[in-house]
């Protein structure tokens, strides 16, 4: 089986789905001739033409707003927002419109739309190019939020997202775009939305993360080999696979949540609330969070201090395990 990095896996998913389903269209800034600034849509314009792979004017709200119209008409737009820091311009269209079209039309209309955007730090980028912004979107009822951490999942989750009848924000951890390759099957397979994945089985502690931080957690596990850790990759943040997380915590009695997003109201807060609701009496230590701080993501000279790393995570694991 062929080994692909995440960029290649996403490209493959788009290519296969566009071959299979003529209603899938790609739109965004520099997605056509240029093949995307991260080359995710490379070669798709040549294969599918400019009516299906559309270089749009530079307008994020315009891209998402018109994609909503296309979705209402039965197309399945996959709209790219070039960097997460420019996704704020889409919030009105997503929060006030895409996410509630089904609800307020009582099902007469729906909006099968996918927004793709790279997110996150660790790539020595400029301001607004290193942010982890999923929290904003998780808070929008009616919108699903997906975040792969591996090439295999990236393809399977994207196919599920495109086929999902509701709007999905699909975040791509840019730090992992080319970080590693793994076997990615050609042809159809999906990874279901709303299903977390246990990456390791363990008895001492549950480690919960998603996106680029999954890789950091895996590195951290190398530093705490004497502790038996169950690492859970959420893969989808909304809807959230509460069952996998709380069942694991009932077993281990200890948990650490790792996320790149700022701490306050980050998804870790929700996870801990659910643990309190469903596994409180099983806890043997307070649940700890390792997160981005409640500050704007600093430029690269200080970025490494901002980001959770294997050291910070391993310290937290030890602290909670030894509590």
């Amino acid at each position, binding site marked *: 089986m062929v080994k692909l990095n995440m960029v290649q896996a996403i490209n493959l998913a788009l290519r296969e789905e566009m071959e299979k389903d003529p209603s899938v269209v790609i739109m965004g*800034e520099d997605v056509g001739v*240029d093949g995307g600034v991260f080359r995710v849509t490379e070669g798709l314009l040549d294969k599918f033409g400019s009516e299906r792979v559309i*270089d749009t*004017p530079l307008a994020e709200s315009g891209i998402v707003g018109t994609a909503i119209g296309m979705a209402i008409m039965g197309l399945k737009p996959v709209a790219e927002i070039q960097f997460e*820091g420019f996704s704020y311009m889409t919030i009105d269209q997503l929060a006030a419109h895409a996410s509630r079209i089904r609800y307020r039309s009582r099902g007469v209309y729906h909006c099968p739309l996918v927004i793709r955007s790279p997110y996150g730090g660790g790539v020595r980028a400029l301001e607004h190019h290193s942010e982890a912004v999923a929290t904003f979107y998780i808070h929008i009822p009616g919108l699903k939020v997906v975040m792969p951490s591996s090439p295999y999942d990236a393809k399977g989750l994207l196919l599920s997202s495109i086929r999902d009848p509701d709007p999905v924000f699909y975040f791509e951890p840019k730090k992992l775009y080319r970080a590693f390759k793994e076997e990615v099957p050609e042809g159809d397979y999906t990874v279901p939305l709303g299903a977390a994945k246990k990456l390791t089985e363990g008895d001492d502690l549950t480690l919960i993360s998603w996106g680029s931080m999954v890789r950091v957690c895996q590195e951290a596990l190398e530093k705490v080999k004497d502790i038996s850790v169950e690492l859970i990759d959420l893969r989808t943040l909304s809807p959230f696979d509460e069952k996998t997380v709380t069942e694991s915590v009932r077993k281990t009695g200890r948990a650490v949540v790792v996320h790149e997003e700022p701490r306050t109201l980050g998804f870790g807060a929700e996870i801990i609330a659910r643990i309190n609701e469903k596994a409180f009496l099983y806890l043997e230590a307070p649940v700890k969070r390792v997160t981005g*701080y409640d500050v704007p993501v600093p430029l690269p000279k200080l970025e490494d*201090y901002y980001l959770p790393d294997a050291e910070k995570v391993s*310290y937290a694991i030890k602290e909670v395990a030894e509590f």
Partner: protein
Amino acid sequence: MPRQKILEMSVDWLQILDPEGNVDEDLEPALDKETLEKFYRNMVLMRLFDDKALKLQRQGRMLTYGSCLGHEACQIGSVFAMRPEDWFFPYFRQHGAQIARGIPMKFIYMYWMGTEDANMGLAPPNFTVAIPVSTQILHAVGVAWAAKIKKQDIAAAVYFGDGATSEGDFHEGMNFAGVFKTPVVFLCENNQYAISLPREKQTASKTLAQKALAYGFDGIQVDGNDVLAVYSATKEALDKARSGGGPTFIEYFTYRLGAHTTSDDPTKYRENAEVEEWKKKDPVKRFRIYLEKKGIWSQGYEDNLIKECSDLIEKAVEEAEAYTPVVENMFRYVYEEMPPNLKEQMDELMSFIAKKKGE
């Protein structure tokens, strides 16, 4: 007559110095020798600054960097049309304009080496560089509006590229400026590409300048490689703004000779022949010919100038690289008073750093 034409509008094109360095004497601005030398010096300095930045980036000593090669006339001519007290809103390709505004090169390099501490080198009325596209336009309109309310005799100048004219913020800013007749000038560097998207795919409009007409004020297209035309048009617009005449939109018709940024590969979307055609319209070269004809420029003059500018650049780079950012600044400038959660997080980070050092 039930159906008749009710509106006719037009847009001017202005060029004073042609690519061969010939000047239109009727339009030639009356500038003394010192001013002309200042223009040229800044254009040369800007080009050398840019060249150095690209080299630093290739050596891994800078972040992603957007070259301003080819923008020398639009940036230098426009900045010197401003008064020091006019507000200045640059976008991310404005290195030369920033230098001409008096921002020390050390701080400009520092910023692109990756620290917000560089912005400590800014002071009003020079605003921070806009990284998102077009958002600064509204801020400039607001500043100009406030100046009008406060009856200050100043204008605001805001720069952006051709791509920005597609964003909602651009249209909202233009509309507010028209409605409230704010003393703002919209300075659009139309360098023909927004990353890979050519100007003709950005908008169906024949010119960008005509967009002003829809918002009720003047738009003009200027040869953006002609520093004299840029200066004249910008000065006229600023004078008009300060004297209560409202906003103006200026389209500097130019070309991005380099890549969008160091992360970009322009061969994917444009022909080299096109770049070569534009190199013939080089803004620095044509101004040099003009100065030579005036007896200001000579090879010796050039050599001295390049030496002087290169020395300044080397010194600025050295100072920028010598700077070590302060970790606590990450928390210190989020609010005027640090709230308890940030204090706690800062302490957490500092003890983590100490613990790591101790291991």
